């Protein structure tokens, strides 16, 4: 089920975000995947880079650093991983 796979990926990305950035008062289940990570959560570019590097290892993909600015939400990150994996229909 593609939707389920997407949901699982988004949940895992949220989990990594929470773990790497030590976010409090939020769990992978309650994380709003449309939240703007920079504007709403105030995540610094270096923290976002850290998360990106962890995700690269986890999903065996390579993000182009020119695309970092577009990684604004968990959903956008998941979408880009799927594109890099070639699984977007």
């Amino acid at each position, binding site marked *: 089920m593609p939707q389920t796979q997407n949901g699982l990926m988004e949940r895992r990305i949220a989990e990594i975000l929470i773990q790497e950035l030590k976010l409090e008062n939020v769990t992978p289940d309650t994380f709003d995947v449309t939240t703007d990570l*920079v504007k709403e959560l105030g995540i610094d*570019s270096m*923290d976002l880079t850290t998360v990106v*590097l962890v995700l690269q*290892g*986890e999903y065996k993909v390579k993000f*182009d*650093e020119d695309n970092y600015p577009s990684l604004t939400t968990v959903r956008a990150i998941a979408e880009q991983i799927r594109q890099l994996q070639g699984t977007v229909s």
Partner: protein
Amino acid sequence: MNLDVLAAAPANTAPAATSGTFADIVKLPDIAARFAKVRRYFFLRESTYDMTRRCNVRCDGCYYYEGDKQNAQDNLDPEAWRKLFQAEKARGITFVVLAGAEPALVPDLLEACSAEIPLGAIASNGLIHISSEVGYRIHISVWGNDATSERVRRAKRMLERQIEIYAGDPRAVFVYTFTRENIAEARGVVENLARHGCKVTFNMFSATVGYQGSLSHTPTSLAETRQAMLSLLADYPEQVLFSPYSAAAHTDTLSLHDLYSCPYPRQNQGQFGLGRSFRQYRSDLTWIREAACCVPDTDCADCRHYAAGSAIVTARMNRHIGSPDQFRAWLDYVDTYLAVWVQGYAKEPNLCAVPIAPALARQTGAAR
């Protein structure tokens, strides 16, 4: 340490075999500890501010007296600066660099600014003491021994006076700028500073746009400077705030922009990192996005400035994960940057004994 290794490193050194993923690399004990330490400072978001158009010395190749920023009128109202810094804090700026032309000439403004944003650094020629009320790092520019300073900066007994004023001041970091002409005298200057217990770091003369003077570097002087930096770092590890990778990055034949792609707004109009948050204010409190970088009017093709590297190299963490040693080199660079710029941050011993060629970081970013 084999000081010849870096100088001999070919421009296209093949990347070392990747030893696991980033997650694996940051689990290595020495790396994990250092990454945890420097990561606490990822919140730093900087902007820079020219405080006044006045200066008490006139130096060849000074960045401030190039371009039209020198024509901005001074705003000497501390309240105006206080309000600006309140607004800066509100938009997320957590670290300020007070520069051009000579900030020590406007002490009231320095106190007003530091009262609003507590972390910062001041670029000064060190000939006027800055009140201890201002808790910023103070970078004191050194362009050679006193004979050279008198010729290039038209100031007598410059180093002697700088040491008289700032020796023993925990805020002070002496910044030795290597030009094509003063490489050989660096040792004597560093010895003198070390004898007085002063901390010192290294800068590279970086030509302003159109500069035709004799201070610009050549491939030969870059290699000689690298040797001098590494030698002084090895001989004065307690006094010299630097790393082997810092030496490599700043003495490459390619500029910092060409090696790493500068993230400042002048070269990066994007909405990410420095491209989003960085501003360079003039002394009339205006700023121009298209001109904004840490040392405006520098020729990007010749930029090896220490202030530029502090942002450019640190921002490219993603280009330094090809091997554990490459990441250690990046951590050393960031550790150096924090020790030089952040008051109270203590430099750790460098982790990477193996010289890493900056070309590896360039290759990693080659997808751009």
